[in-house]
């Protein structure tokens, strides 16, 4: 006898959900938005340094994702794909901002919620990394966040931030050096 168990959509693997979304299943898309929305927003906040704009970016990203889900190749990582869309949407905003305002417009990202109960060692490591990332110069920070979280290639970063490839490499090398040093000091 095979038992029936319903309500399992929230446990479904990404690939299955993506296939359903491509077929028009709104419920499956809801599961994906819940699964990755908060992560995408955290990434957008890191890229944009703005909490309000990041909400808009994530919403725009999901609307695009809904329309394009069928283009996602079988077996590809849904998360990486979504992060890439967030990158593009966030970069659009950064470009617009560049035209309208000077660099001082960039606010430092809000620190993660840090209640005393949460301060355990692992957490302190995040905080250490978090503040180390925040202390990086803006371009280094953006390059690093796009590379390590957004999964962008060197040439994509170069194109999107309108920087020479060699600069991107240099910025990334410096960011990595600084962050590793800071993190190792914690060990």
């Amino acid at each position, binding site marked *: 006898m095979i038992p029936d168990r*319903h309500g399992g959509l929230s446990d479904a693997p990404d690939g299955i959900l993506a296939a359903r979304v491509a077929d028009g299943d709104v419920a499956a898309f809801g599961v994906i938005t819940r699964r990755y929305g908060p992560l995408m927003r955290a990434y957008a906040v890191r890229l944009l340094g703005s909490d309000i704009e990041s909400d808009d970016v994530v919403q725009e990203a999901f609307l695009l994702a809904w329309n394009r889900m069928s283009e996602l190749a079988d077996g590809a990582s849904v998360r990486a794909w979504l992060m890439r869309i967030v990158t593009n949407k966030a970069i659009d905003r950064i470009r617009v901002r560049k035209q309208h305002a000077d660099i001082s417009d960039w606010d430092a990202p809000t620190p993660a919620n840090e209640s005393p109960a949460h301060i355990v060692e692992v957490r302190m490591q995040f905080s250490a990394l978090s503040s180390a990332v925040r202390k990086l110069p803006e371009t280094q920070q953006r390059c690093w966040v796009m590379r390590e979280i957004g999964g962008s290639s060197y040439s994509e970063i170069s194109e999107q931030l309108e920087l020479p490839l060699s600069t991107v490499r240099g910025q990334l090398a410096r960011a990595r050096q600084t962050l590793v040093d800071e993190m190792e000091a914690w060990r």
Partner: protein
Amino acid sequence: MTDSLDPGALDSEDLDGHSIDELSDYLDSGRSPRNPDIENSPGCQIALAALTRLRATTWAMLEAEAESDPERDNVWITRVLDNIKREARAGRDIPISHPDPTVELTVTEGSVRGLIRAAGDGTGGAIIGKCVLDGDVTVPGEPIEVNVTASVAWGENLQAIAALMRARILDDLRLHTELNILSVNVMIQDIHTRHSATTKDVQ
């Protein structure tokens, strides 16, 4: 920021001629193909370990920052879903017969796919993935093949589940459509465990 790299865990002198850049790329490639030069250098090993830890901490940090705020999430998720429902994929129009030629009855392909998903979901904890109606569904009587993929709960009898799923899908298609179903093919694509699909296991 200075142009020269600060001495530290990734002191370039210890990297036996390799750069951080190179080591990061090597890590990105999953350390494949294996580079014996890097693998045999103690300095590189230390640097690789440090970069790996940095990467793991980065994602852990992001996940901590992403700790969901259910109320706030509900607001924008609802907004997103409301916006997309309006243009849900209807697909082709599948005819339903009527003796009067001035009456035209149809059921959309999208709603039939929803029907198939609902019929197959839950069979032994299975979840339907992709669902394709192969053949010209717009022409009455055309032979149609139904192809679905599914993810099945860990530890279940795959053959039995696939058979039961086929039967259920076929029953529902017969009740709700006039399609000439040649076969229903179930391809088990994944095995899932409860709560297996979190952001962590995509890492």
